[in-house]
C-alpha cells in the first residue's frame, strides 16, 4: 500500500513538474516598484503586474477596447455605466471573483485614503468616478460625478484585486504579494533581480475577443531586470532571455544579423513636438509658427537620427488613436517658404531663438536647431534636467522668457480627451505653448460630454484641423517602441500600450 502511495506520489510530482517546462524570459529595463496594482504610476510596473492581474476591460492588438473579466459593458446614461461580470472567474487562491471584489478594487482606486491611509496615485486615471453600486452578484454600476465618455478607454489601466485578500494582508502586504485573476501566479519576487511567475492552471481564459482563449501557453515566465541597454542586448544574443524591451536603436542591426533574434516594433503612444511660446513674440504670429514647421525636415531626422524608428505626425494624435484625422495637411520641408513666411511676418533679417530640451533628447534637439539655422534662424539648444525644465514650462509666469520647448505628451488611453484637453485647451495643465483658441476649446468641451462616438469623432477631427492650421507646435513624430525577440518565441507581438502580455506567447 505504502509502495503504491509512493508510486502515485511520484507520478503526481512528475505531472506537476514537467521535465523541460516551457520557460519564457524577458530582459526588462526596470524592476516593479510594487506589486500593488493601485499604488504606483509606472508603465513598467504595470507591464509586470498585468501578467498576473487582469482588469475589467483590456485592448486587443489593434488597441480596440474589449471586455476581459467583464462580460459586457454599456452606458446607461451620461453619468452611469453598467458592467456585467463573467461567471466562475477564479483568483490564484481559488476564490471566485464577485461584484464585491470589483467594487472594492474601484473604491480603493478612487476614494481618498482608501489604501491604508494613502490615496491611490492612480485615482485621477479614473477621473470623475464617484461610486460603484452592486446591482447583483454579477453586475456593477459605475457612477460618475460628470459625464466621461472615455471611461472604457481608461479601465484597461486598472487591475482587479480580491477584497478578502487585501483585508487580510493590508495595503502593505499587497506591495509584495499577489492574489489576482491573471494568467500567471507569482512565485517569487527577487527585488532588483527578477520576478518569477508560473502558469495559473485555473485561469478563466482571458478576453473572449482575443484568441486563443485559455490558460497561458508557457509554464513559467521570468522578468529579469537588466537596466543597462548593452547588457540586455548581450543577454538576448547569449540566449539568456527571449524578449527584451527598450532595444537601443544602435543594436538593431546586430540583433537582426545574429540569426537568433529579430527586431520587432510598435508605434508608441507618446507624441513628440516642439511647443512654441505663443504668448511671446515672435511666436504670437502664426506665420512664424508655420515658418518653423516648414523649416524642419522631419523625415530626415527620423531616418538619420532616429534610424527610422518613428512615424511623422501632422498633428497631435497617434494614427491608432480614436478620432485620428488622417487628412491633416503636411507642412512640407521647404526652407525657402519658411524664409518667405518669416520675411512676411517682419523677421526677414533673422531671429535668435533658444530651444529647451532634456539631456536625453540633445541629439534630436540639435538636429532641429541646425535645420532652423538653414532657414535663417539662429537657434541654440539649452540642455536641462527634466526635473528642472518641466516645472518651468508648466507655469505661464516661469516660461515667460523661454522660446521653444522640445517635449512630449503620453496618450496611453489613445483617446484625444487624454492629450488634446491638457495640451491644447486654454489653461490646460500641459499646454506649454500657452495656446488658446476659443473654437478649439468649444469643440474639446463638447467632445467631453458627447456620448455618440461618431459625433465625438467629428468634434475631435475638426479640432485637429484648426490646431494644424494654427501650428502652436512644431509637429514632430510618434516614436516606435523597439523590442528584441528571440526566434524561439511565437504568438507574441509588441503593442502600442507597451505592455508585454505573455498569456498567448509560446517558446520552441
Amino acid at each position, binding site marked *: 500500500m505504502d509502495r503504491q502511495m509512493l508510486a502515485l506520489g511520484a507520478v503526481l510530482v512528475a505531472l506537476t513538474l514537467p521535465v523541460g517546462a516551457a520557460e519564457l524570459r524577458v530582459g526588462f529595463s526596470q524592476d516593479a516598484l510594487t506589486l500593488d496594482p493601485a499604488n504606483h504610476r*509606472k508603465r513598467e510596473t504595470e507591464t509586470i503586474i498585468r501578467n498576473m492581474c487582469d482588469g475589467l476591460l483590456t485592448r486587443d492588438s489593434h488597441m480596440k477596447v474589449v471586455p476581459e473579466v467583464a462580460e459586457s459593458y454599456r452606458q446607461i446614461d451620461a453619468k452611469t455605466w453598467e458592467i456585467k461580470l463573467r461567471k466562475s472567474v477564479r483568483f490564484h487562491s481559488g476564490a471566485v471573483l464577485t461584484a464585491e471584489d470589483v467594487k472594492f478594487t474601484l473604491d480603493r482606486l478612487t476614494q481618498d485614503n482608501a489604501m491604508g491611509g494613502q490615496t491611490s496615485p492612480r485615482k485621477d486615471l479614473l477621473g470623475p468616478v464617484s461610486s460603484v453600486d452592486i446591482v447583483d452578484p454579477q453586475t456593477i454600476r459605475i457612477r460618475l460625478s460628470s459625464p466621461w465618455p472615455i471611461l472604457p478607454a481608461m479601465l484597461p489601466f486598472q487591475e482587479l484585486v480580491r477584497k478578502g485578500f487585501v483585508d487580510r494582508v493590508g495595503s502593505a502586504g499587497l506591495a509584495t504579494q499577489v492574489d489576482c485573476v491573471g494568467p500567471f501566479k507569482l512565485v517569487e519576487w527577487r*527585488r*532588483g533581480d527578477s520576478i518569477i511567475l508560473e502558469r495559473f492552471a485555473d485561469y478563466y481564459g482571458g478576453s473572449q475577443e482575443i484568441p486563443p482563449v485559455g490558460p497561458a501557453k508557457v509554464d513559467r515566465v521570468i522578468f*529579469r531586470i537588466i537596466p543597462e541597454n548593452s*547588457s540586455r542586448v548581450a543577454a538576448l544574443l547569449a540566449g539568456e532571455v527571449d524578449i527584451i524591451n527598450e532595444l537601443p536603436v544602435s543594436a538593431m542591426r546586430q540583433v537582426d544579423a545574429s540569426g537568433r533574434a529579430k527586431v520587432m516594433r510598435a508605434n508608441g503612444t507618446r507624441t513628440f513636438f516642439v511647443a512654441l511660446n505663443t504668448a511671446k513674440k515672435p511666436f504670437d504670429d502664426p506665420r512664424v509658427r508655420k515658418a518653423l514647421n516648414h523649416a524642419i525636415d522631419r523625415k530626415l531626422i527620423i531616418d538619420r537620427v532616429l534610424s527610422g524608428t518613428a512615424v511623422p505626425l501632422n498633428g497631435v494624435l497617434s494614427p491608432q488613436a480614436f478620432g485620428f484625422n488622417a487628412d491633416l495637411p503636411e507642412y512640407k520641408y521647404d526652407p525657402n517658404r519658411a524664409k518667405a513666411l518669416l520675411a512676411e511676418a517682419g523677421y526677414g533679417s533673422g531671429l535668435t531663438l533658444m530651444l529647451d530640451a532634456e539631456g536625453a533628447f540633445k541629439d534630436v534637439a540639435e538636429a532641429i536647431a541646425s535645420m532652423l539655422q538653414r532657414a535663417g534662424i539662429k537657434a541654440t539648444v539649452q540642455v536641462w534636467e527634466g526635473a528642472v525644465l518641466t516645472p518651468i514650462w508648466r507655469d505661464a509666469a516661469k516660461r515667460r522668457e523661454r522660446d521653444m520647448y522640445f517635449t512630449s505628451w503620453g496618450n496611453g488611453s489613445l483617446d484625444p480627451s487624454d492629450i488634446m484637453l491638457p495640451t491644447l485647451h486654454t489653461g490646460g495643465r500641459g499646454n506649454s505653448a500657452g495656446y488658446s483658441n476659443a473654437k478649439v476649446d468649444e469643440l474639446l468641451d463638447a467632445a467631453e460630454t458627447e456620448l455618440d462616438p461618431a459625433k465625438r469623432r467629428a468634434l475631435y477631427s475638426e479640432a485637429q484641423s484648426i490646431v494644424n492650421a494654427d501650428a502652436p507646435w512644431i509637429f514632430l513624430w510618434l516614436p516606435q517602441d523597439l523590442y528584441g525577440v528571440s526566434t524561439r518565441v511565437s504568438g507574441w507581438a509588441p503593442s502600442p500600450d507597451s505592455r508585454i502580455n505573455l498569456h498567448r506567447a509560446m517558446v520552441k
Partner: protein
Amino acid sequence: MGTVVDRLLQLVTVLLGVTVIVFVMITLTPGDPVEIMLGDMKAAPEQAEALRRDMGLDRPPVERFFRFIGNAVQGNFGLSFFHRRPVIDVIAERLPATIELTLAALVLALAISIPLGALAAVQKGGALDRAATIGALLGVSMPGFWFGILLIMLFAVQLGVLPVSGRIGYGDEVPALTGLLTIDTLLAGRFDSFAQALRHLALPSLTLALPMAAPLMRVTRASMLEVLRSDYVMFAEAKGLSRRRVLWRHALKNALMPAVTIAALETGSLLGGNMIVESVFGWPGLGRLVVESIFARNYPLVQAAVLLYAVTYVLLNLLADLAYTLLNPKVRL
C-alpha cells in the same frame, strides 16, 4: 578601548552633520518627486496635491527636517516615495547583494595585488615587475563600464561560459539566512547552487576588483621595497633565516599596513554600491537603487542610504586602525 568608545561617539557627530548637509542639499536641489512620479501619464493637480500630502511634502522644510530626525532616532526612515514601502525594507532587500559583491571583489583584489606587489618588489626591475606595473596602469585607467561589457561579450556571448546578469540561476533558490547567496547555498548544502552563485559573481567581482587591485599592488610593492631595505630584514637574513621566511613572515607583514588602509577605504566606497557595475551586470544592489532614487528625488531613501554610507565609512576606518595594532603591536590606538 577607551579610544574605540570615543571614536564611536564621534560617529554621532558625523551622522548629525551628514544628515544636515544631505537635507540642505536635497532641499536646494530643484525638481519635484511628485512631478516625476506622475510623469509617465501626466496627472491632474488634485492628484499631485494628494500625493504631496501623502509624502509629507506639503510641510515646510524645517518641520520636515525635525520630523525626519525625530523618526530616524526611533529607527523609522519613512516610506520610499516610489515604492510606497518603508525605506528600511527597500534598502535591506538590496544591501546583501552589494555586500556580497564587495566582499568578493575585495578578496579577489587582495588575492591578486598582495602576492603580485610583493613579488614585483622582490624582483624589482624584472619582467614580472614590469608586467605588474603595466597591468596596474591598465587596471586603474580602464573604465568599469567598458571592461564589464567586454567581459560579457567574451565570456557570455562568445564563449557562453558565464551568465550576463543576475545573482543566481532559476531553480537554485535556497532559504535566505545571511542574504549572501554564496554562503546561504553552502549552509543549505547545495553545492550546485553554490557553483551557480559563484558563476554569477565572477564577472562583476572581477570588474570591480581590477581597479581596486591596481593601487593596492603599487602600494604593496612600494612599501615592500622600503621594508626590504630596513635593518631588521638585513639582520634576519644575517641570522641565516631562509629568504622565504624573511620575506613572507617578517617583511610582508610590515609592508601590509598602507595596503590595509587603502583596502578599507576602497571597501567603504564599494559598500555604497557601484552604480555602473551593478547596472551593467543587472546586479540587484544598493548603488543602482540610490542613483535611481537621486534622479527620482526619492528623498527618504537617499537620506537613509547616505546615513548608512557614513556609518560604514567610519566603522571601516576604525577597523583599519584596529588592524594596524594587530599587524604592528607598536601602534596603539
